C-alpha cells in the first residue's frame, strides 16, 4: 500500500466518521403531493416548515435536515420511499402520512427499523388497539373520533332524524359507524356513493324528500366541493342542516365559498381557536404562504413542536430510543389546539369542538370555533393496547 492510498483511506474514514457523529437531526416526511389531494400534503409540508423556520431550522437545539417524499397516493411508492428513508438516509424520525392506507403501507418497515413514526394526520383504528406500537405516535386524532363527535353534535343540536351519506370505501364506512355509535336519534337513510362521485343530484333528490332534520356526510376533497355546491344549488340549505367531517375545511372552502357558510363540522381545532400560540401561528402562516391553514397544517406544526420538545429533553441525543419515547410521550409542548396529551396507545387525548363555516371580512372562508362538545376525549380502542 502506498502513501496516496493510505491518505485516501484516512480521508474516507474521516468522512465516514463525521457523518456518523454529525449532530444533524434527520427527519423524513412521507406525504401525498400529487393528484387532487396534493393540497392536503402541501399543508403538512408548509406547517412543518413554518415551525422549523421559526426555530431557525433547529428542533431541540439540533440542526434539522428535512427530506420530503411524495407517496403519490400509491402504497407501493409510499413503501419504497419510506424504506429508502430509514435504510439509505437513516433518518431519526419519519413524519407521515396524510392517508390511512399510506400509513398502513409504510408502518412495518419503519417501526421494525426502530425509527419513530409520527403521523401528522392519518389515525387509523388499526394501530390504536392491540396492534399499537412503541415506535408509533399520532398527533392528529383517531379516525373514528370526528364522526363520533358529530353524533354528539347532532344530539346537542336536537336533531331527531339524520340522512347519512358517505363514499363507499373503508373510511366512509368507519365514519358512518362512528356517527351511528353516538347519535341517539334515527338515521332515516344510509347512502353509499362511489368514491370520487361527480353528480349528487340523485342523492339530493332523495335527501329533499327524506324529511330528515340534517344531513351527515363525509366527503373529503373534490367530492365535498361538488356536494356542497349542489346541495346549495338545489335550495336544500333553507330546509335542513348540513353537518360533516373533513368536507368543509380550509382545503375545500376556497372552492365551496358562500355555499358552505353556516355548515357545521366536528374537529379539534379551527383557525380562530382563542389561544395566543394559535393566533400567532395563523398570522405567520398566512403571511408566509398566502392561504388560511387547515387542521393538516396545524397538526404538522404541532408535530414539529412535539419533536422539538422531545429532542430538547434528551439533550439532543436521539440514540437512546427509550429516552426519546418517554420524552415524546410526555407531549411537553404548547399545542395550537390547547390541551394535548398522549394516551397509552400514543394517540391523543384532546378536546373536540363544534365548528361552523364563516366568511371573514376580507372575503376568505374558514371554519370557526363554536363550542367544545367533549373534553379530554380518548378513542375507543386504547384499552386493547398493551404497551
Amino acid at each position, binding site marked *: 500500500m502506498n502513501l496516496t492510498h493510505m491518505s485516501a483511506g484516512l480521508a474516507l474514514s474521516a468522512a465516514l466518521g463525521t457523518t456518523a457523529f454529525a449532530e444533524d437531526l434527520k427527519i423524513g416526511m412521507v406525504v401525498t403531493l400529487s393528484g*387532487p389531494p396534493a393540497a392536503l400534503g402541501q399543508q403538512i409540508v408548509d406547517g412543518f416548515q413554518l415551525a422549523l423556520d421559526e426555530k431557525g431550522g433547529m428542533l431541540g437545539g439540533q440542526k434539522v435536515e428535512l427530506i420530503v417524499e411524495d407517496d403519490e397516493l400509491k402504497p407501493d411508492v409510499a413503501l419504497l420511499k419510506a424504506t429508502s428513508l430509514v435504510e439509505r438516509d437513516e433518518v431519526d424520525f419519519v413524519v407521515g402520512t396524510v392517508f390511512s392506507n399510506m400509513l398502513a403501507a409504510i408502518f412495518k418497515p419503519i417501526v421494525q427499523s426502530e425509527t419513530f413514526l409520527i403521523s401528522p394526520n392519518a389515525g387509523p383504528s388499526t394501530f390504536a388497539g392491540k396492534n399499537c406500537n412503541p415506535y408509533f405516535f399520532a398527533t392528529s386524532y383517531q379516525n373514528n373520533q370526528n364522526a363520533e363527535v358529530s353524533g354528539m353534535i347532532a344530539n346537542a343540536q336536537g336533531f331527531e332524524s339524520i340522512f347519512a351519506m358517505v363514499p363507499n370505501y373503508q373510511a366512509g364506512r368507519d365514519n358512518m359507524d362512528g356517527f351511528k355509535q353516538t347519535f341517539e336519534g334515527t338515521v332515516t337513510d344510509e347512502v353509499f356513493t362511489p368514491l370520487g362521485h*361527480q353528480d349528487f*343530484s340523485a342523492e339530493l333528490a332523495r335527501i*329533499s*324528500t327524506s324529511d330528515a332534520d340534517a344531513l351527515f356526510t363525509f366527503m373529503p376533497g373534490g367530492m365535498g*366541493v361538488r356536494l356542497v355546491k349542489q346541495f346549495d*344549488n338545489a335550495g336544500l340549505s333553507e330546509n335542513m342542516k348540513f353537518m360533516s367531517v373533513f368536507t368543509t375545511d380550509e382545503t375545500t372552502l376556497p372552492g365551496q365559498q358562500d355555499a358552505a357558510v353556516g355548515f357545521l363540522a366536528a374537529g379539534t381545532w379551527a383557525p380562530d381557536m382563542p389561544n395566543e400560540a394559535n393566533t400567532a401561528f395563523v398570522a405567520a402562516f398566512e403571511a408566509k404562504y398566502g392561504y388560511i391553514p387547515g387542521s393538516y397544517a396545524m397538526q404538522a406544526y404541532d408535530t414539529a413542536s412535539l419533536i422539538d420538545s422531545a429532542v430538547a429533553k434528551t439533550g439532543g441525543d436521539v440514540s437512546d430510543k427509550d429516552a426519546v419515547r418517554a420524552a415524546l410521550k410526555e407531549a411537553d409542548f404548547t399545542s395550537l389546539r390547547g390541551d394535548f396529551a398522549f394516551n397509552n396507545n400514543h394517540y391523543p387525548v384532546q378536546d373536540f369542538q363544534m365548528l361552523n363555516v364563516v366568511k371573514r371580512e376580507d372575503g376568505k372562508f374558514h371554519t370557526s370555533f363554536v363550542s367544545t362538545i367533549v373534553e379530554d376525549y380518548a378513542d375507543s380502542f386504547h384499552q386493547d393496547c398493551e404497551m
Partner: protein
Amino acid sequence: MSLSLFLILCLNGLQYGVLLFLIAAGLTLVFGVMGFINLAHGVQYMVGAYLAFAYVQLTGSFMLAVFLSLGTALVFGLLLEYLVFRHLYGRSHLDQVLATFGIIIFLNELAKVLFGPATLTIAPPDFLSGSIQLTETLRYPVYRFATIVAGLAVALGLFFIVSYTRIGMLIRAGATTPEMVSALGVNIQRLFMIVFGVGAMLAGFAGVIAAPIFAIEPGMGDNILIVAFVVIIIGGIGSIGGAFVAALLVGLIDTLGRSLATTALSVVFDASFANQVGPALASMLIYILMATILVVRPKGLLPAKGVAP
C-alpha cells in the same frame, strides 16, 4: 318513491345524458371518420372547464366566458391536431393510444401547475342561479334546466348540419368510406381537421357548462371519457344519432340505477346487504347495458349508414 322524485331523477338523467352527448359527439366522429383513437378527448372537457374558470376570473362575466372558452377550445383542439394528432393518423392504434395517453398526463399536470391541485368552482350566472319549486318538498336548480336546453339545442344544430349541409354529407360519407371520399377529390386532411376542431369544441363546451355544477380539478375528464366510449359503442361508432340516443339512455340508466338499485334490492334482501351490493351494482349497470347491446347488435343501436348492422 314518489312521482315527483322520479321526475327529478329523469331530469337529472337527461341532463347527464346531454352532457355525455356533447363529449361523445366529437369522440364518435373522430373515431368513426378518422379511425383515430383519441384518449385525450376527455382532457378537452377539462380544458373547457379550466378555460371557463380563467375567463370568469378575467372578465367577471359567465356568458362572456362561455364564448371566449368556446373559441379558445376550438383553437386548442386545432393546435393539438396540427402538432400531434396529424402525425398519428397513419400509425397503429397502439401508437395513437400511447401518444394521446401522454397528452392526458401532460395536460393534467399542466392544469395542476397553472391552477394548483385544489378543486375550483365557478358560480352560475345570476339569472340562472336559484331553483324552481317543483312540488312542496322538491326544488330543481334553474341552471340544470338551462344545461338541458343548451345541450338539446346543440344536438339539434349538429343534427341539422350533419343531415342537411354539404360538410355534413362529407362527414357522413367519410365515416363510412373515407377512401372513396378522398378519391373523389375531397381534401380529407381538411375535413379531418374540421371534425377534430368541432369535436374538441363540443367537449370543451361540455366542460364549460359542467363547471358550475361539478367541480373543476385536474383529471376530471378521465372518468367521463370512459363513459363517453361506452356511449359511442352503444350508439354505433361514427353515428351522431346513435350517440344522442345512447347518451340519453346511459344518462338515464346511470342516474336512475344509482337511486333505485339499493331501494330495489332492499325489497328482496336485508338492508345491510342492499347497502353493500346496491352501489356496486348501480355503477355496473351501464357496462352491463353495453355488453348486452354488443351481443344483440354488435354495431350499436343506430349504426352509421353504410355500416352493416
